[in-house]
């Protein structure tokens, strides 16, 4: 696999015209891909009336005045009050309070967004850590040791991904109810781990296969045990693969929607099933939904940007060795 790919990297540099064309295609694609994101970001700074006005209001400060109302509504729960009661209140002590009162409501407490967001963080990072940890150990074993029925086991591991995970939703639902794992963070971590671990094993086995055994052998002769050699020699060289795998696992666990809807409702609910059901006055509160989505994008954006160097090298499957 790597042999074929690495030769593709040694071809002469592309000509200027090819580069220009490639650049144009990338820019075009980026525009198409970014428009929905941009729209979500814009919606999050509109007022509810602006967000559903027709024709749409596009340019901030020209077509509409930006407002933090979406973010206020995202983080707070409100209740409608009579004009008399509102008049009897002392002056509002925050911008959000003021906006809320202008809609004839008061803030009665924090919304569930923060706990849902925390659930997402715990479940996504927890399952990623577990998938990558287990995957690295299993991949190392498959790569280096004589495992009985190795090929069959690897095929079995892969076969768990041969249908969409949601196809087994009902058995899992029943099983989780029986085991008391429904609506628990542990249950969700285990579920996402079991989906991701097969991907992790296969990806990481490829990366570890590419690290010549001689390095570990040299380390063992230099006075290290196999485990120490694994830590000092294999892990540092597998970083790229581990990071790329972690990003794939994290993106799946972070964005997973179907199981989250099915299995979580309260204590363990993640952000994806929570965000779309933020209801405002007279229906969906679009600015709040957009605000929730915008904030939801941030952790994965940070994670990916921090590790993008590894990711770029990682998704070429070790073809570029450094």
């Amino acid at each position, binding site marked *: 696999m790597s042999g074929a790919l690495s030769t593709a990297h040694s071809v002469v540099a592309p000509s200027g015209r090819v580069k220009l064309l490639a650049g144009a295609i990338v820019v075009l694609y980026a525009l198409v891909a970014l428009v929905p994101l941009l729209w979500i970001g814009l919606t999050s700074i509109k007022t509810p009336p602006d967000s559903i006005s027709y024709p749409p209001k596009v340019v901030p400060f020209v077509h509409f005045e930006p407002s933090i109302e979406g973010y206020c509504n995202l983080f707070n729960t409100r209740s409608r009050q009579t004009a008399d009661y509102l008049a009897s209140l002392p002056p509002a002590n925050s911008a959000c309070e003021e906006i809320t009162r202008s809609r004839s409501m008061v803030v009665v407490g924090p919304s569930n967004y923060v706990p849902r967001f925390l659930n997402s963080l715990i479940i996504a990072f927890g399952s990623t850590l577990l998938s990558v940890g287990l995957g690295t150990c299993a991949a190392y074993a498959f790569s280096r040791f004589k495992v009985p029925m190795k090929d069959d086991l690897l095929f079995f591991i892969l076969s768990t991904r041969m249908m969409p995970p949601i196809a087994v939703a009902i058995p899992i639902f029943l099983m989780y109810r029986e085991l008391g794992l429904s609506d628990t963070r542990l249950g969700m971590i285990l579920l996402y781990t079991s989906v991701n671990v097969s991907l992790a094993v296969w990806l990481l086995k490829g990366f570890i296969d590419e690290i010549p055994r001689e390095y570990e*052998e040299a380390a063992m*002769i*230099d*006075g290290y*045990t196999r485990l120490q050699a694994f830590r000092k020699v294999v892990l540092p060289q597998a970083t790229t693969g581990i990071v790329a795998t972690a990003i794939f696992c994290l993106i799946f666990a972070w964005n997973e929607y179907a199981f989250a809807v099915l299995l979580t409702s309260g204590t363990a609910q993640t952000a994806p099933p929570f965000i779309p059901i933020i209801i405002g006055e007279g229906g969906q509160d679009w600015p709040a939904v957009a605000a929730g989505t915008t904030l939801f994008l941030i952790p994965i954006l940070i994670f990916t940007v921090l590790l993008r160097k590894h990711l770029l090298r990682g998704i070429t499957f070790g073809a570029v060795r450094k």
Partner: protein
Amino acid sequence: MAEITLAQVSKRFGPVQAVTDLSLTIANGEFVVLLGPTGAGKTTSLRLVAGLETPDDGRVFIGGVDVTGLPPAARDVTFVFQQYSLYPHLSVFDNLAFPLRSPTRRTPEDEIRRAVGEVARLLRIEDKLQNRATQLSGGQMQRVAIGRALVRRPAVYLMDEPLSSLDAKLRSELRIELKHIQQDLGATMLYVTHDQTEAMTLATRIGVINRGRLVQIGTPRSIYEDPADIYVATRLGSPGINLLPRALFPTLEAPAAAATIGVRTEHLAIAKGQNGAVTGKVDWIERLGDQNHLHIDVNRQQIVSLVDPDEGLGVGDEVAVSLHKPLFFAADGQRVR
């Protein structure tokens, strides 16, 4: 420093018998070179000593201790690998320091700096110490790999073609350097090479391996002058030994079983004219500067001989050929005396 003993060691990889019934003792302070064609089992033999392979049969002793079941780290050996052995994520300095930082051998940092500096000077890589291991040329990498073996004082040094990717000049310099180091330390070394010059100059004894078997072991001189069979005879000497049918020299005295006559290039006497028992014609001359290789056609058999450039022979000349110290081999390749 310690003695190595391999006692009837065999190793098989699936259908391939890599090493068969290998028995060999390397005395304390001895420099033994294993010589053999590719795939002969040289690397496997070293790996068996190092503990990177476990023998199917037989036992391995280092310093009188049975180490057959011990992991590599417990054997106190170093190994210079044939390829891929520098840790690519570490600098040259850290590569050299790696063995000294191992949990079994914790060394103070200033002692590490001293030892690494000394080895780097010896191998002429001082200016590369801060480079990443991947930013070196092949020859520099190989020197770092040798350096990693020399930076500590193990019981046994194992080296698998450590000089193979160096240029000729550096190779001959390091060859001398290695021999000095080995003698100064009184080190026990097991060394693999394809290069016969290396084998001849470095070895206390040479072991010739073919198809997993140790065919012959002895001093370089005895291997060269007194080979046990045709294979060993062809292994050494450049240009190679002339192998000629017995019938080409009907008047030569030879044992009855002799089917082939082996004669080294320097053991041929060539004289202008036809006064010898056997005559041939000069086919062509390879001029190497200090000497010439004369290719002589004797009854349509090619013979190669060394001659002085001043000999005054030219292509087409008739020459008389006579043999000194011919070696005789039976039809199965075994030496007959």
